[in-house]
């Protein structure tokens, strides 16, 4: 992410992101037939904010409170041994737990699929959901594992030389999705 090119161009702006989230919220309600047993779990950092926004939209639609939490996957990563240990983020499971519920994992970018694999492992240690679904803001392709998203904000065909950076108001001060070119190491 630090190799972000300065000439990165936005592919989604604030209003687009809001529209996309509204659509995903409606899709969740439609597919879950009312979404009464839905639990949203965001993957830190930005997935958590997206999950909170989705929860707010779901509440508007269903007029019911939707449990929303976060799921840190750091300790379940398959590349732990390849980097220095990362700082941990918060795992916050809503009070009623996830047993027998429909868990919707929320993340900003779906890329290799390894994060989601780690998230499924993490879920396994926490409970047994009725089903697990995945919602992402951007699907940029290049999967390395047999994983797909159930709800996609935007399909963004990219090359491996490109970078996709999601910025959200809660963390970065503005809502945007930037597509840049990876700067090669000098």
């Amino acid at each position: 992410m630090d190799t972000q090119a300065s000439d990165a161009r936005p592919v989604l702006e604030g209003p687009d992101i809001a529209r996309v989230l509204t659509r995903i919220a409606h899709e969740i309600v439609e597919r879950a037939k009312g979404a009464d047993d839905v639990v949203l779990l965001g993957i830190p950092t930005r997935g958590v904010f997206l999950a909170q926004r989705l929860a707010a939209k779901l509440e508007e639609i269903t007029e019911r409170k939707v449990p929303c939490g976060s799921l840190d996957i750091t300790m379940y990563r398959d590349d732990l041994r390849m980097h220095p240990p990362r700082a941990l983020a918060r795992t916050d499971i809503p009070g009623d737990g996830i047993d027998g519920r429909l868990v919707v994992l929320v993340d900003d970018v779906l890329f290799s699929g390894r994060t989601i694999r780690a998230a499924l492992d993490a879920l396994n240690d926490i409970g047994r959901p009725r089903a697990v679904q995945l919602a992402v803001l951007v699907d940029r392709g290049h999967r390395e594992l047999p994983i797909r998203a159930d709800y996609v904000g935007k399909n963004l065909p990219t090359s491996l030389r490109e970078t996709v950076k999601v910025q959200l108001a809660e963390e970065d001060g503005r809502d945007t999705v930037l597509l840049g070119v990876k700067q090669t190491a000098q």
Partner: protein
Amino acid sequence: MQRHLISAADLTRDDAVLILDTAEEMSRVADRPIKKLPTLRGRTVVNLFFEDSTRTRISFEAAEKRLSADVINFSAKGSSVSKGESLKDTAQTLEAMGVDAVVIRHGASGAPYRLANSGWIDAAVINAGDGTHQHPTQALLDAFTMRRRLVGRDAGLGHDLAGKRVTIVGDVLHSRVARSNVDLLHTLGAEVTLVAPPTLLPVGIGTWPCEVSYDLDSTLPKSDAVMMLRVQRERMNAAFFPTEREYSRRYGLDGDRMAKMPEHAIVMHPGPMVRGMEITAQVADSERCTAIEQVANGVSIRMAVLYLLLGGNEPALTNTRTEEK
């Protein structure tokens, strides 16, 4: 490059806060139905205990198992050490077995440092108490307990203990806990006052980053946390005070003394407590005494230390002071 945790003095403020923050997340694992993380799967940790210990050994073992490490317990009693084997030979035996980390408690001050810097082994060395020198994970769990109680669980994340007044009372001379705490609390910005009879203060205490007092009653009203130390009878080879009764009258914490502390202030004890000596049962069993909480926090702190030292391809801590270049 190999890194170890030998002394609380080696930790920078940022390292210490990182450990405390990591421990805060680790502590949430204890609330889950499956109290296990896969993080150290396939790593072998030896608990090398040359001295008796209940809570530290069990705490390390629980932490290692919660992180899925393979645990080998070693105590000097019933091992080849009782046949005269040296630390070097024991260490090299462990090395030959392919150990990733050694948690060592030893009666001789400096044994973990020797182990880490001698070139005998490649494994990471974590000091679980050496002689009267250091016990860094105890200091970390004490700081963690203080931050939780005095600053707040979530409010404390990312913060140190700046401005908190901590009083450590009792047998400072023989206490590795006091040494480690003074070092770490100073790093974290707290103001430490040691209270003890002059005979139980070590030579050279003037150079420590703390205040010294002989009067407990005047110190209590300006303390946010009061840490009572056990009088270590097993290390008492001289008459340090006339009688136990006199000691506990002047330096023991009872209900009346506790009432002089500010309302938010907590009473800490690293354990094992000797009730009636440095602390009365009334204080030990009160809401303000965090002794049991400290034990629970110990597991979280040790998980954090193990994760940060062993979880990746290199340690996340930047301590360099103990390393010989």
